[in-house]
Protein backbone atom coordinates (compact mmCIF):
# COMPACT_ATOMS: atom_id res chain seq x y z
CA UNK A 1 0.00 0.00 0.00
CA UNK A 2 2.76 2.42 0.96
CA UNK A 3 4.66 1.48 -2.14
CA UNK A 4 1.64 2.10 -4.25
CA UNK A 5 1.24 5.54 -2.73
CA UNK A 6 4.86 6.37 -3.39
CA UNK A 7 4.49 5.24 -6.96
CA UNK A 8 1.39 7.37 -7.31
CA UNK A 9 3.27 10.36 -6.01
CA UNK A 10 6.02 9.99 -8.55
CA UNK A 11 3.45 9.45 -11.25
CA UNK A 12 1.65 12.64 -10.25
CA UNK A 13 4.89 14.53 -10.11
CA UNK A 14 5.84 13.43 -13.61
CA UNK A 15 2.47 14.02 -15.14
CA UNK A 16 2.05 17.31 -13.29
CA UNK A 17 5.25 18.70 -14.65
CA UNK A 18 4.73 17.39 -18.15
CA UNK A 19 1.31 19.03 -18.21
CA UNK A 20 2.93 22.23 -17.06
CA UNK A 21 6.02 22.04 -19.27
CA UNK A 22 4.88 24.24 -22.19
CA UNK A 23 3.55 26.81 -19.78
CA UNK A 24 6.73 26.82 -17.74
CA UNK A 25 8.87 27.32 -20.84
CA UNK A 26 6.75 30.07 -22.37
CA UNK A 27 5.82 32.03 -19.29
CA UNK A 28 9.30 31.53 -17.90
CA UNK A 29 11.00 33.04 -20.93
CA UNK A 30 8.59 35.77 -21.85
CA UNK A 31 7.00 36.80 -18.61
CA UNK A 32 9.08 35.66 -15.64
CA UNK A 33 12.34 36.84 -17.18
CA UNK A 34 11.07 40.35 -17.95
CA UNK A 35 9.52 40.51 -14.48
CA UNK A 36 12.80 39.38 -12.93
CA UNK A 37 14.55 42.12 -14.85
CA UNK A 38 12.01 44.62 -13.58
CA UNK A 39 12.60 43.47 -10.01
CA UNK A 40 16.28 44.07 -10.55
CA UNK A 41 15.52 47.53 -11.93
CA UNK A 42 13.38 48.44 -8.94
CA UNK A 43 16.50 48.48 -6.75
CA UNK A 44 18.46 50.65 -9.13
CA UNK A 45 18.54 54.06 -10.62
CA UNK A 46 18.45 53.16 -14.25
CA UNK A 47 19.19 54.80 -17.52
CA UNK A 48 18.33 52.62 -20.49
CA UNK A 49 18.21 55.20 -23.23
CA UNK A 50 21.58 56.29 -24.55
CA UNK A 51 24.40 55.34 -22.20
CA UNK A 52 23.04 52.41 -20.24
CA UNK A 53 23.71 52.61 -16.56
CA UNK A 54 22.44 50.84 -13.45
CA UNK A 55 23.22 52.40 -10.12
CA UNK A 56 22.30 50.30 -7.11
CA UNK A 57 20.23 52.45 -4.78
CA UNK A 58 18.92 49.85 -2.38
CA UNK A 59 15.38 50.60 -1.34
CA UNK A 60 15.49 54.25 -2.41
CA UNK A 61 12.81 53.71 -5.04
CA UNK A 62 10.52 52.23 -2.42
CA UNK A 63 11.25 54.95 0.10
CA UNK A 64 10.43 57.52 -2.54
CA UNK A 65 6.86 56.20 -2.63
CA UNK A 66 6.10 57.44 0.85
CA UNK A 67 6.66 60.96 -0.30
CA UNK A 68 4.84 60.74 -3.63
CA UNK A 69 1.43 62.38 -3.16
CA UNK A 70 0.23 61.33 -6.59
CA UNK A 71 0.82 57.68 -5.76
CA UNK A 72 -1.62 57.82 -2.87
CA UNK A 73 -4.18 59.66 -4.94
CA UNK A 74 -3.81 57.06 -7.68
CA UNK A 75 -4.16 54.24 -5.20
CA UNK A 76 -7.23 55.80 -3.65
CA UNK A 77 -8.82 56.37 -7.06
CA UNK A 78 -8.05 52.82 -8.04
CA UNK A 79 -9.55 51.33 -4.89
CA UNK A 80 -12.65 53.49 -5.22
CA UNK A 81 -12.95 52.43 -8.80
CA UNK A 82 -12.57 48.73 -8.03
CA UNK A 83 -15.06 48.86 -5.16
CA UNK A 84 -17.80 49.99 -7.51
CA UNK A 85 -16.85 48.39 -10.80
CA UNK A 86 -16.02 44.86 -9.64
CA UNK A 87 -19.30 44.09 -7.83
CA UNK A 88 -21.32 45.85 -10.51
CA UNK A 89 -19.81 44.02 -13.44
CA UNK A 90 -19.80 40.67 -11.63
CA UNK A 91 -23.49 40.89 -10.79
CA UNK A 92 -24.42 42.27 -14.18
CA UNK A 93 -22.55 39.53 -16.02
CA UNK A 94 -24.03 36.80 -13.82
CA UNK A 95 -27.53 38.13 -14.33
CA UNK A 96 -27.08 38.49 -18.08
CA UNK A 97 -25.63 35.00 -18.37
CA UNK A 98 -28.40 33.44 -16.29
CA UNK A 99 -31.06 35.10 -18.38
CA UNK A 100 -29.39 34.21 -21.64
CA UNK A 101 -29.09 30.63 -20.51
CA UNK A 102 -32.86 30.30 -20.35
CA UNK A 103 -34.84 29.16 -23.29
CA UNK A 104 -35.85 32.55 -24.51
CA UNK A 105 -37.13 33.66 -27.84
CA UNK A 106 -34.49 35.60 -29.84
CA UNK A 107 -31.91 34.33 -27.41
CA UNK A 108 -29.17 34.29 -30.00
CA UNK A 109 -29.92 37.83 -31.03
CA UNK A 110 -29.56 39.00 -27.44
CA UNK A 111 -26.40 37.02 -27.00
CA UNK A 112 -24.82 38.74 -29.96
CA UNK A 113 -26.13 42.19 -29.06
CA UNK A 114 -24.86 41.97 -25.49
CA UNK A 115 -21.44 40.89 -26.65
CA UNK A 116 -20.96 43.80 -29.07
CA UNK A 117 -19.33 46.23 -26.61
CA UNK A 118 -16.46 43.80 -26.25
CA UNK A 119 -15.67 43.61 -29.95
CA UNK A 120 -16.16 47.28 -30.72
CA UNK A 121 -12.75 48.91 -30.79
CA UNK A 122 -11.82 51.00 -27.78
CA UNK A 123 -11.00 54.08 -29.88
CA UNK A 124 -14.54 54.01 -31.24
CA UNK A 125 -15.98 53.40 -27.79
CA UNK A 126 -14.18 56.37 -26.34
CA UNK A 127 -15.37 58.56 -29.19
CA UNK A 128 -18.94 57.47 -28.64
CA UNK A 129 -18.72 57.99 -24.90
CA UNK A 130 -17.20 61.43 -25.38
CA UNK A 131 -20.26 62.25 -27.41
CA UNK A 132 -22.60 60.82 -24.79
CA UNK A 133 -20.79 62.49 -21.89
CA UNK A 134 -20.15 66.01 -23.14
CA UNK A 135 -22.04 68.85 -21.53
CA UNK A 136 -24.56 69.01 -24.38
CA UNK A 137 -24.50 65.26 -24.86
CA UNK A 138 -27.01 62.48 -24.69
CA UNK A 139 -26.61 61.67 -21.00
CA UNK A 140 -27.23 65.22 -19.85
CA UNK A 141 -30.14 65.43 -22.28
CA UNK A 142 -31.74 62.41 -20.65
CA UNK A 143 -30.99 63.65 -17.12
CA UNK A 144 -32.45 67.02 -17.99
CA UNK A 145 -35.63 65.60 -19.42
CA UNK A 146 -36.16 63.76 -16.13
CA UNK A 147 -35.48 66.94 -14.24
CA UNK A 148 -32.25 65.61 -12.77
CA UNK A 149 -29.09 67.66 -12.28
CA UNK A 150 -26.63 67.61 -15.16
CA UNK A 151 -22.86 67.40 -14.96
CA UNK A 152 -19.84 68.13 -17.06
CA UNK A 153 -18.98 64.43 -17.11
CA UNK A 154 -15.58 64.87 -18.68
CA UNK A 155 -14.38 67.98 -16.92
CA UNK A 156 -15.81 67.75 -13.44
CA UNK A 157 -13.38 65.93 -11.13
CA UNK A 158 -16.20 64.69 -8.93
CA UNK A 159 -17.85 62.72 -11.74
CA UNK A 160 -15.02 62.13 -14.23
CA UNK A 161 -14.09 58.81 -12.65
CA UNK A 162 -17.71 57.76 -12.50
CA UNK A 163 -17.98 58.30 -16.24
CA UNK A 164 -15.09 55.95 -16.84
CA UNK A 165 -16.61 53.44 -14.42
CA UNK A 166 -19.88 53.25 -16.33
CA UNK A 167 -18.08 52.79 -19.59
CA UNK A 168 -15.87 50.08 -18.16
CA UNK A 169 -18.72 48.11 -16.61
CA UNK A 170 -20.58 48.28 -19.85
CA UNK A 171 -17.66 47.02 -21.93
CA UNK A 172 -16.26 44.29 -19.64
CA UNK A 173 -19.48 42.72 -18.38
CA UNK A 174 -20.02 40.84 -21.69
CA UNK A 175 -16.64 39.12 -21.30
CA UNK A 176 -17.54 37.72 -17.92
CA UNK A 177 -21.02 36.98 -19.19
CA UNK A 178 -19.48 34.54 -21.67
CA UNK A 179 -17.47 32.87 -18.92
CA UNK A 180 -20.57 32.47 -16.80
CA UNK A 181 -22.46 31.13 -19.80
CA UNK A 182 -19.77 28.50 -20.27
CA UNK A 183 -19.75 27.66 -16.58
CA UNK A 184 -23.53 27.29 -16.46
CA UNK A 185 -23.28 24.44 -18.95
CA UNK A 186 -21.14 22.47 -16.52
CA UNK A 187 -23.68 22.36 -13.69
CA UNK A 188 -24.99 18.82 -13.50
CA UNK A 189 -28.63 18.57 -14.50
CA UNK A 190 -29.49 16.13 -11.75
CA UNK A 191 -29.01 18.85 -9.15
CA UNK A 192 -31.87 20.81 -10.68
CA UNK A 193 -33.97 17.70 -11.13
CA UNK A 194 -33.55 16.87 -7.47
CA UNK A 195 -34.57 20.40 -6.56
CA UNK A 196 -37.61 20.12 -8.81
CA UNK A 197 -38.68 17.06 -6.88
CA UNK A 198 -38.28 19.02 -3.66
CA UNK A 199 -40.56 21.65 -5.16
CA UNK A 200 -38.03 24.46 -5.32
CA UNK A 201 -38.91 27.47 -7.44
CA UNK A 202 -36.61 29.09 -9.96
CA UNK A 203 -35.35 31.68 -7.57
CA UNK A 204 -34.50 29.11 -4.92
CA UNK A 205 -32.72 26.96 -7.47
CA UNK A 206 -30.69 29.95 -8.58
CA UNK A 207 -29.55 30.72 -5.04
CA UNK A 208 -29.09 27.18 -3.77
CA UNK A 209 -27.64 25.49 -6.81
CA UNK A 210 -26.47 27.90 -9.47
CA UNK A 211 -24.63 30.42 -7.31
CA UNK A 212 -22.78 27.85 -5.16
CA UNK A 213 -21.87 25.79 -8.21
CA UNK A 214 -20.44 28.86 -9.91
CA UNK A 215 -18.24 29.71 -6.94
CA UNK A 216 -14.90 28.78 -8.51
CA UNK A 217 -15.75 30.72 -11.65
CA UNK A 218 -16.99 33.65 -9.60
CA UNK A 219 -13.64 33.61 -7.84
CA UNK A 220 -12.03 33.91 -11.25
CA UNK A 221 -14.37 36.68 -12.35
CA UNK A 222 -13.80 38.67 -9.19
CA UNK A 223 -10.03 38.25 -9.20
CA UNK A 224 -9.80 39.15 -12.87
CA UNK A 225 -12.16 42.05 -12.28
CA UNK A 226 -9.93 43.35 -9.53
CA UNK A 227 -6.81 42.91 -11.61
CA UNK A 228 -8.51 44.60 -14.55
CA UNK A 229 -9.69 47.56 -12.51
CA UNK A 230 -6.41 47.95 -10.69
CA UNK A 231 -4.68 47.94 -14.04
CA UNK A 232 -7.07 50.41 -15.64
CA UNK A 233 -5.14 52.45 -18.13
CA UNK A 234 -6.63 52.96 -21.59
CA UNK A 235 -9.75 54.83 -20.69
CA UNK A 236 -8.19 57.20 -18.20
CA UNK A 237 -5.30 57.79 -20.58
CA UNK A 238 -7.60 58.73 -23.43
CA UNK A 239 -10.10 60.70 -21.34
CA UNK A 240 -7.43 62.85 -19.69
CA UNK A 241 -4.97 62.95 -22.62
CA UNK A 242 -2.44 61.19 -20.42
CA UNK A 243 -2.34 63.67 -17.53
CA UNK A 244 -4.72 61.95 -15.11
CA UNK A 245 -6.55 65.21 -14.59
CA UNK A 246 -8.63 67.15 -13.79
CA UNK A 247 -6.92 67.49 -10.43
CA UNK A 248 -5.83 63.85 -10.50
CA UNK A 249 -9.43 62.64 -10.67
CA UNK A 250 -8.70 60.07 -13.34
CA UNK A 251 -5.19 59.20 -12.25
CA UNK A 252 -4.79 55.45 -11.88
CA UNK A 253 -1.87 53.32 -10.72
CA UNK A 254 -0.97 52.09 -14.16
CA UNK A 255 -1.28 55.54 -15.71
CA UNK A 256 1.21 56.71 -13.08
CA UNK A 257 3.52 53.79 -13.83
CA UNK A 258 3.27 54.52 -17.54
CA UNK A 259 4.07 58.20 -16.99
CA UNK A 260 7.21 57.30 -15.09
CA UNK A 261 8.29 54.46 -17.37
CA UNK A 262 7.83 56.14 -20.73
CA UNK A 263 7.39 59.87 -20.23
CA UNK A 264 10.16 60.38 -17.70
CA UNK A 265 12.04 57.17 -18.58
CA UNK A 266 12.44 56.47 -14.87
CA UNK A 267 12.28 52.69 -15.13
CA UNK A 268 13.57 52.01 -11.63
CA UNK A 269 10.81 53.88 -9.88
CA UNK A 270 8.19 52.67 -12.35
CA UNK A 271 9.19 49.07 -11.55
CA UNK A 272 8.99 49.70 -7.82
CA UNK A 273 5.48 51.14 -8.28
CA UNK A 274 4.44 48.13 -10.32
CA UNK A 275 5.51 45.81 -7.54
CA UNK A 276 3.60 47.79 -5.00
CA UNK A 277 0.56 47.41 -7.24
CA UNK A 278 1.12 43.66 -7.62
CA UNK A 279 1.49 43.22 -3.88
CA UNK A 280 -1.73 45.11 -3.23
CA UNK A 281 -3.65 42.99 -5.73
CA UNK A 282 -2.11 39.83 -4.33
CA UNK A 283 -3.13 40.71 -0.80
CA UNK A 284 -6.70 41.34 -1.91
CA UNK A 285 -6.70 38.04 -3.77
CA UNK A 286 -5.44 36.15 -0.74
CA UNK A 287 -8.19 37.66 1.37
CA UNK A 288 -10.68 36.58 -1.25
CA UNK A 289 -9.33 33.10 -1.23
CA UNK A 290 -10.10 32.91 2.44
CA UNK A 291 -13.67 33.94 1.67
CA UNK A 292 -14.01 31.64 -1.33
CA UNK A 293 -12.38 28.66 0.37
CA UNK A 294 -14.62 26.24 -1.46
CA UNK A 295 -12.02 24.39 -3.34
CA UNK A 296 -9.73 21.77 -1.99
CA UNK A 297 -7.55 19.67 -4.17
CA UNK A 298 -8.60 16.08 -3.92
Amino acid at each position, binding site marked *: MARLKGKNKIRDLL*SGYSFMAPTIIILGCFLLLPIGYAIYLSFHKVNLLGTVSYKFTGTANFERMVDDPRLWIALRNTVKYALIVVPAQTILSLVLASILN*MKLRYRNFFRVAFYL*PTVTSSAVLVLIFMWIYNSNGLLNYILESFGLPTYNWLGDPSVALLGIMIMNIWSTAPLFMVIYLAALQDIPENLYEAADIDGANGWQKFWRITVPQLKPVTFYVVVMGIIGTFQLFDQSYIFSAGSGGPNNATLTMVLLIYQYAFKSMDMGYASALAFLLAVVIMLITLIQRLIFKEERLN
Partner: protein
Amino acid sequence: MRSINRFRPLFYVLLSVYALVTFIPFLWALSASFKSLPEIVSGGIHFIPKHFTLDNYQTIFKQEPMFSRWFMNSAFIAISVTVFNLLFNSMAGYALARIRFPGSTLMFYSILAMIMIPGQLTIIPSYLIIKELGWLNSYQAIIVPMAAQATYIFMMRQFFISFPKELEEAAELDGLGRFGLFFKVVLPLAKPALAAQTIFIFMGAWNEFLKPLMLMSDKSMFTLSVGLNTFKGQYISFWNYIMAASIIMTIPALLIYIFFNRFFVQGITFTGTK
Protein backbone atom coordinates in the same frame (compact mmCIF):
# COMPACT_ATOMS: atom_id res chain seq x y z
CA MET B 1 -41.51 27.78 -13.22
CA ARG B 2 -44.75 29.61 -13.35
CA SER B 3 -43.23 32.49 -11.41
CA ILE B 4 -40.66 32.90 -14.16
CA ASN B 5 -43.34 32.88 -16.78
CA ARG B 6 -45.16 35.65 -15.02
CA PHE B 7 -42.06 37.83 -15.17
CA ARG B 8 -41.38 36.98 -18.77
CA PRO B 9 -42.65 40.24 -20.32
CA LEU B 10 -40.54 42.15 -17.84
CA PHE B 11 -37.52 40.11 -18.85
CA TYR B 12 -38.05 41.00 -22.45
CA VAL B 13 -38.37 44.67 -21.70
CA LEU B 14 -35.16 44.66 -19.66
CA LEU B 15 -33.34 42.62 -22.25
CA SER B 16 -34.44 44.90 -25.05
CA VAL B 17 -33.41 48.03 -23.20
CA TYR B 18 -30.02 46.58 -22.46
CA ALA B 19 -29.66 45.36 -26.04
CA LEU B 20 -30.37 48.89 -27.19
CA VAL B 21 -27.62 50.20 -24.94
CA THR B 22 -25.13 47.71 -26.34
CA PHE B 23 -26.30 47.85 -29.93
CA ILE B 24 -26.42 51.58 -30.55
CA PRO B 25 -22.69 52.33 -30.37
CA PHE B 26 -22.00 49.50 -32.76
CA LEU B 27 -24.71 50.66 -35.15
CA TRP B 28 -23.34 54.15 -34.94
CA ALA B 29 -19.84 52.97 -35.85
CA LEU B 30 -21.29 50.91 -38.67
CA SER B 31 -23.21 53.83 -40.10
CA ALA B 32 -20.24 56.18 -39.65
CA SER B 33 -18.12 53.82 -41.71
CA PHE B 34 -20.38 54.59 -44.66
CA LYS B 35 -20.20 58.35 -44.18
CA SER B 36 -17.67 60.84 -45.40
CA LEU B 37 -15.50 62.62 -42.87
CA PRO B 38 -17.42 65.91 -43.26
CA GLU B 39 -20.63 64.14 -42.42
CA ILE B 40 -19.15 62.43 -39.36
CA VAL B 41 -17.60 65.55 -37.89
CA SER B 42 -20.51 67.82 -38.75
CA GLY B 43 -22.02 66.85 -35.42
CA GLY B 44 -25.50 65.70 -34.57
CA ILE B 45 -26.58 62.11 -34.52
CA HIS B 46 -28.29 60.31 -37.31
CA PHE B 47 -27.93 56.65 -38.01
CA ILE B 48 -28.65 56.61 -41.71
CA PRO B 49 -25.89 58.23 -43.75
CA LYS B 50 -27.13 61.18 -45.78
CA HIS B 51 -24.68 60.39 -48.52
CA PHE B 52 -23.99 56.71 -48.42
CA THR B 53 -20.44 56.06 -49.54
CA LEU B 54 -18.14 53.08 -49.88
CA ASP B 55 -15.12 55.35 -50.26
CA ASN B 56 -13.75 54.60 -46.82
CA TYR B 57 -13.63 50.89 -47.45
CA GLN B 58 -12.32 51.44 -50.95
CA THR B 59 -9.51 53.63 -49.69
CA ILE B 60 -8.56 51.02 -47.14
CA PHE B 61 -8.61 48.18 -49.64
CA LYS B 62 -7.11 49.98 -52.58
CA GLN B 63 -4.73 52.55 -51.23
CA GLU B 64 -3.24 50.00 -48.94
CA PRO B 65 -1.68 47.43 -51.20
CA MET B 66 -0.71 45.54 -48.08
CA PHE B 67 -4.27 45.02 -46.88
CA SER B 68 -4.53 41.35 -47.83
CA ARG B 69 -1.07 40.72 -46.46
CA TRP B 70 -2.01 42.31 -43.15
CA PHE B 71 -5.19 40.30 -43.05
CA MET B 72 -3.23 37.09 -43.57
CA ASN B 73 -0.72 38.08 -40.89
CA SER B 74 -3.48 38.75 -38.40
CA ALA B 75 -5.33 35.56 -39.26
CA PHE B 76 -2.21 33.42 -39.08
CA ILE B 77 -1.14 34.89 -35.76
CA ALA B 78 -4.60 34.75 -34.20
CA ILE B 79 -5.24 31.16 -35.29
CA SER B 80 -1.83 29.88 -34.18
CA VAL B 81 -2.09 31.62 -30.85
CA THR B 82 -5.57 30.20 -30.30
CA VAL B 83 -4.53 26.62 -31.09
CA PHE B 84 -1.49 26.72 -28.83
CA ASN B 85 -3.41 28.32 -26.00
CA LEU B 86 -6.28 25.87 -26.12
CA LEU B 87 -3.83 23.04 -25.63
CA PHE B 88 -1.32 24.56 -23.25
CA ASN B 89 -3.71 26.49 -21.04
CA SER B 90 -6.02 23.54 -20.65
CA MET B 91 -3.13 21.24 -19.78
CA ALA B 92 -1.74 23.63 -17.23
CA GLY B 93 -5.14 24.48 -15.81
CA TYR B 94 -5.94 20.81 -15.46
CA ALA B 95 -2.67 20.03 -13.72
CA LEU B 96 -3.15 22.88 -11.29
CA ALA B 97 -6.72 21.86 -10.52
CA ARG B 98 -6.48 18.11 -10.44
CA ILE B 99 -2.97 16.79 -10.02
CA ARG B 100 -1.29 17.01 -6.69
CA PHE B 101 2.40 17.53 -7.19
CA PRO B 102 5.12 19.35 -5.28
CA GLY B 103 5.33 22.93 -6.42
CA SER B 104 1.81 23.13 -7.76
CA THR B 105 0.70 25.69 -5.19
CA LEU B 106 3.77 27.77 -5.85
CA MET B 107 3.10 27.61 -9.56
CA PHE B 108 -0.50 28.60 -9.13
CA TYR B 109 0.43 31.66 -7.13
CA SER B 110 3.26 32.52 -9.51
CA ILE B 111 0.79 32.47 -12.38
CA LEU B 112 -1.58 34.70 -10.44
CA ALA B 113 1.29 37.04 -9.62
CA MET B 114 2.25 37.26 -13.28
CA ILE B 115 -1.23 38.49 -14.17
CA MET B 116 -0.94 41.13 -11.50
CA ILE B 117 2.17 42.80 -12.86
CA PRO B 118 1.01 45.51 -15.27
CA GLY B 119 2.07 44.83 -18.82
CA GLN B 120 3.41 48.36 -19.34
CA LEU B 121 6.38 47.36 -17.22
CA THR B 122 7.46 44.38 -19.28
CA ILE B 123 7.27 46.07 -22.69
CA ILE B 124 10.92 47.07 -22.80
CA PRO B 125 12.43 43.87 -21.30
CA SER B 126 10.26 41.71 -23.57
CA TYR B 127 11.35 43.76 -26.53
CA LEU B 128 14.99 43.19 -25.61
CA ILE B 129 14.49 39.44 -25.20
CA ILE B 130 12.80 39.13 -28.56
CA LYS B 131 15.47 41.21 -30.15
CA GLU B 132 18.17 38.97 -28.65
CA LEU B 133 16.39 35.96 -30.10
CA GLY B 134 16.51 37.68 -33.47
CA TRP B 135 12.75 37.53 -33.74
CA LEU B 136 11.94 41.16 -34.56
CA ASN B 137 9.70 41.36 -37.61
CA SER B 138 8.75 37.70 -37.42
CA TYR B 139 5.58 35.81 -36.62
CA GLN B 140 7.09 33.94 -33.71
CA ALA B 141 7.82 37.26 -32.00
CA ILE B 142 4.12 37.47 -31.31
CA ILE B 143 2.97 33.86 -31.43
CA VAL B 144 5.46 32.24 -29.04
CA PRO B 145 5.21 34.69 -26.14
CA MET B 146 1.44 34.53 -26.44
CA ALA B 147 1.28 30.73 -26.79
CA ALA B 148 0.30 30.24 -23.17
CA GLN B 149 -1.50 32.91 -21.19
CA ALA B 150 -1.62 33.08 -17.43
CA THR B 151 -5.10 34.59 -17.43
CA TYR B 152 -6.67 31.64 -19.18
CA ILE B 153 -4.64 29.04 -17.33
CA PHE B 154 -6.24 30.49 -14.23
CA MET B 155 -9.64 30.37 -15.91
CA MET B 156 -9.25 26.75 -16.96
CA ARG B 157 -8.15 25.81 -13.47
CA GLN B 158 -11.29 27.32 -12.05
CA PHE B 159 -13.38 25.38 -14.53
CA PHE B 160 -11.67 22.07 -13.83
CA ILE B 161 -11.95 22.51 -10.06
CA SER B 162 -15.70 22.04 -10.17
CA PHE B 163 -15.59 19.13 -12.59
CA PRO B 164 -17.22 15.95 -11.29
CA LYS B 165 -14.50 13.69 -9.94
CA GLU B 166 -16.47 10.50 -10.45
CA LEU B 167 -15.79 10.49 -14.17
CA GLU B 168 -12.09 10.62 -13.68
CA GLU B 169 -12.15 7.91 -11.06
CA ALA B 170 -14.12 5.65 -13.33
CA ALA B 171 -11.78 6.31 -16.20
CA GLU B 172 -8.78 5.65 -14.02
CA LEU B 173 -10.19 2.25 -13.13
CA ASP B 174 -10.44 1.59 -16.84
CA GLY B 175 -6.67 1.93 -16.96
CA LEU B 176 -6.46 5.29 -18.67
CA GLY B 177 -3.36 7.22 -17.67
CA ARG B 178 -3.36 10.92 -16.89
CA PHE B 179 -2.86 11.92 -20.49
CA GLY B 180 -5.38 9.51 -21.86
CA LEU B 181 -7.80 10.70 -19.24
CA PHE B 182 -7.15 14.32 -20.12
CA PHE B 183 -7.51 13.99 -23.85
CA LYS B 184 -10.24 11.36 -23.96
CA VAL B 185 -12.41 12.27 -21.01
CA VAL B 186 -11.67 15.72 -19.64
CA LEU B 187 -11.25 17.81 -22.78
CA PRO B 188 -14.41 16.56 -24.50
CA LEU B 189 -16.35 17.43 -21.37
CA ALA B 190 -14.82 20.89 -21.16
CA LYS B 191 -16.24 22.08 -24.48
CA PRO B 192 -18.02 25.14 -23.07
CA ALA B 193 -14.86 26.29 -21.32
CA LEU B 194 -12.81 25.63 -24.44
CA ALA B 195 -15.31 27.57 -26.51
CA ALA B 196 -15.08 30.51 -24.12
CA GLN B 197 -11.31 30.31 -24.32
CA THR B 198 -11.39 30.23 -28.12
CA ILE B 199 -13.57 33.32 -28.25
CA PHE B 200 -11.36 35.31 -25.90
CA ILE B 201 -7.98 34.21 -27.13
CA PHE B 202 -8.83 34.67 -30.76
CA MET B 203 -10.24 38.09 -30.07
CA GLY B 204 -7.27 39.04 -27.92
CA ALA B 205 -4.73 37.91 -30.48
CA TRP B 206 -6.69 39.39 -33.38
CA ASN B 207 -6.92 42.77 -31.68
CA GLU B 208 -3.45 42.68 -30.14
CA PHE B 209 -1.99 46.07 -30.82
CA LEU B 210 0.98 46.89 -28.64
CA LYS B 211 3.06 43.80 -29.46
CA PRO B 212 2.94 44.13 -33.25
CA LEU B 213 3.30 47.90 -32.90
CA MET B 214 6.56 47.48 -31.02
CA LEU B 215 7.92 44.34 -32.64
CA MET B 216 7.04 44.80 -36.30
CA SER B 217 8.68 47.71 -38.04
CA ASP B 218 8.43 46.20 -41.49
CA LYS B 219 5.17 47.20 -43.14
CA SER B 220 4.73 43.75 -44.63
CA MET B 221 4.72 42.23 -41.15
CA PHE B 222 2.06 44.54 -39.75
CA THR B 223 -1.13 43.06 -38.46
CA LEU B 224 -4.48 44.55 -39.41
CA SER B 225 -4.82 46.19 -36.01
CA VAL B 226 -1.61 48.16 -36.56
CA GLY B 227 -1.94 48.70 -40.28
CA LEU B 228 -5.44 50.09 -40.01
CA ASN B 229 -4.40 52.42 -37.24
CA THR B 230 -2.22 54.66 -39.33
CA PHE B 231 -5.06 57.00 -40.22
CA LYS B 232 -4.33 59.26 -37.34
CA GLY B 233 -2.33 62.40 -37.88
CA GLN B 234 -0.51 64.31 -35.20
CA TYR B 235 -3.45 66.68 -34.82
CA ILE B 236 -6.31 65.15 -36.76
CA SER B 237 -8.06 61.78 -36.65
CA PHE B 238 -9.67 60.49 -39.82
CA TRP B 239 -12.75 59.03 -38.27
CA ASN B 240 -14.20 57.82 -41.54
CA TYR B 241 -11.27 55.46 -42.10
CA ILE B 242 -10.98 54.59 -38.42
CA MET B 243 -14.65 53.55 -38.33
CA ALA B 244 -14.38 51.48 -41.48
CA ALA B 245 -11.23 49.86 -40.14
CA SER B 246 -12.87 49.11 -36.81
CA ILE B 247 -15.80 47.42 -38.54
CA ILE B 248 -13.40 45.29 -40.56
CA MET B 249 -11.58 44.38 -37.35
CA THR B 250 -14.80 43.53 -35.56
CA ILE B 251 -16.26 41.07 -38.02
CA PRO B 252 -13.93 38.06 -37.60
CA ALA B 253 -14.00 38.29 -33.80
CA LEU B 254 -17.77 38.52 -33.91
CA LEU B 255 -18.10 35.56 -36.28
CA ILE B 256 -15.95 33.42 -33.99
CA TYR B 257 -18.19 34.38 -31.09
CA ILE B 258 -21.36 33.57 -32.99
CA PHE B 259 -19.97 30.25 -34.13
CA PHE B 260 -18.72 29.10 -30.72
CA ASN B 261 -21.85 30.24 -29.01
CA ARG B 262 -23.42 26.92 -29.92
CA PHE B 263 -21.36 25.29 -27.18
CA PHE B 264 -23.22 27.29 -24.58
CA VAL B 265 -26.54 25.63 -25.27
CA GLN B 266 -25.71 21.94 -25.13
CA GLY B 267 -25.86 21.81 -21.39
CA ILE B 268 -28.77 22.20 -19.15
CA THR B 269 -30.90 25.25 -18.79
CA PHE B 270 -31.82 25.71 -15.22
CA THR B 271 -35.38 26.84 -15.42
CA GLY B 272 -38.17 24.48 -16.15
CA THR B 273 -39.36 26.54 -19.06
CA LYS B 274 -41.47 24.33 -21.18
